[in-house]
């Protein structure tokens, strides 16, 4: 219940701050959607607020600058989560490609990169932004930890206690495919994710080997071992 309350509070904040956040609010018969990157640019604050809602306020969502090999400082999303499993649940997409915190009557705080202006099947409160928007880039960066959690759960590791991630944000272009490739490169080579778990070593190893990320580490609390890519 507290998680949904936090998500609802976040969506209410987004409505109130839409102008300042460079977003636009659209009321529809099936709910309210916030344009965070279609006809308006959206940006940092709407993404931060959404992530705080998706994580139930259980942790820190922050931006930082990271220096890359070419010397350039670029922005990065950093997450420090007290409930990475709960947050991962919020990143599971439904059949329409929407994910988020669900309520009895639709989404309390939903997110999608589909153009809701043209779609009818959604219900509730949803934030939507285009695939090559800053907002979607930040959501995809956050989703990387959720994917790592899901990889561990598939291998039977269920006691996942805390996690953190640091993901540089690739520059966007109008070429959606180019933007997608840049983000994949960031995920594979420059994103650092660590999760603290209790679980069986071979299962942890299988989860790590199944992820195409060079700096994904799992720290097993009982054995004090750390697992990474071989």
């Amino acid at each position, binding site marked *: 219940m*507290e998680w949904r309350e936090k998500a609802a509070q976040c969506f209410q904040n987004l409505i109130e701050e839409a102008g300042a956040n460079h977003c636009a609010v659209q009321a529809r018969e099936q709910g309210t959607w916030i344009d965070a990157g279609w006809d308006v640019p959206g940006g940092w604050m709407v993404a931060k607020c959404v992530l705080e809602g998706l994580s*139930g*306020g*259980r*942790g*820190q969502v*922050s931006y*930082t600058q990271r220096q890359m090999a070419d010397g350039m400082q670029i922005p990065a999303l*950093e997450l*420090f*989560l*007290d*409930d990475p499993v709960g947050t991962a649940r919020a990143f599971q997409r439904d059949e329409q490609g929407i994910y988020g915190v669900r309520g009895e009557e639709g989404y309390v705080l939903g997110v999608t990169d589909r153009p809701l202006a043209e779609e009818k099947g959604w219900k509730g409160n949803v934030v939507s932004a285009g695939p090559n928007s800053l907002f979607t880039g930040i959501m995809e960066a956050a989703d990387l930890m959720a994917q790592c959690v899901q990889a561990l759960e598939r291998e039977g590791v269920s006691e996942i*206690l*805390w996690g*953190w991630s*640091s993901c540089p944000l690739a520059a966007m272009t109008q070429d959606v495919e180019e933007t997608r490739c840049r983000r994949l490169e960031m995920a594979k080579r420059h994103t*650092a994710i*660590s999760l*603290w778990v*209790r679980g069986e070593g071979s299962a942890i190893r299988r989860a790590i080997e199944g992820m195409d990320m060079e*700096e994904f*580490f799992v*720290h*097993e*609390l*009982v*054995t*004090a*071992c*750390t*697992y*990474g890519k*071989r």
Partner: protein
Amino acid sequence: MCYSLNERACRIIEENILPHLDALGVQVHVLKNGATVLDMGVFAKGGWMAAKYFTQSNLGGLGELTYGTMQVGSHRLPTANIFVDRAAVAELAAHDAFLYIEYQGVKRSVSGPLRSVTGTDHFAQAVSYRDPAPRKIVAHIQIDELPDEGMTELIAGAVGRHPRDLYLLAARTGTLTGAAQVCARNVEQSLPSLLDQGFPIDAIVQACGSAPIPAVVDDEQLAYGRVNDGLIYGQETNLYVDCADEEITRLETILPFNKNGDVYGIPFETLFARCDYLWRNVPREWDAPCRVNFFNLRTGHSFSYGALHHGVLEQAFLGSNGGK
């Protein structure tokens, strides 16, 4: 002084912790003597936010703990970052764990704003600030069992108060709360060392610091070792001071941890084992900051002493199996 460290700590507890126990992974126990014990990570799960409020209440609300990351060798590690005003008061009269109690044959150190009620120890007495009559007193302890009636009576009694007036926050080292709050003791570690070396504490205007959190493990003794590596090999403190340059320059070889040439580079786990895993056997000289940067507002000069050791930090991060 028109502010109460204990009242500010109480506000953090009553507004940020008690209404959000489930989200924070914290449990509350009201003992028979009326003392309130907050399990921030002894048997409760705790986490990043529990550590944040543990630390911020420990500072008497005079500073902030945020998280970030830093590059250590070829790996990225999370960091605990502290920003503190009135650093001498916040650290020496509250955050530093120099109130000692002996309970059931075990000597334990206690920190928190309650130390400023009477100036419980040599370090709290080094600043003139006192918080003589707060509504409630707040203390913090690093411990692997829940404090009971006897322990809370001793702690409250150390400042002449009844246990019903006490909030006691507890966490063991082998949790994320414990690891993060220890690594957040970056500025905290520097100030007693400065006092030991005769530096004029009142010359410190503001301070901030950072330390990596290299490991969290269940085993309490291993945790002590790995987490303290974050401090002695990874913490970097910035001090804005107003004094003569000579007060700073004479500290070059006597302040930082690498002055201990015979042990520098050895993981704390090994050093702690040499001390039979007893804090009372750890030489005072080992509790020294890794790196301190002084920025002298009076002269415009800056000085840096000490060095980080990425090798030991990576070793702690990569665990018992070297990350393989």
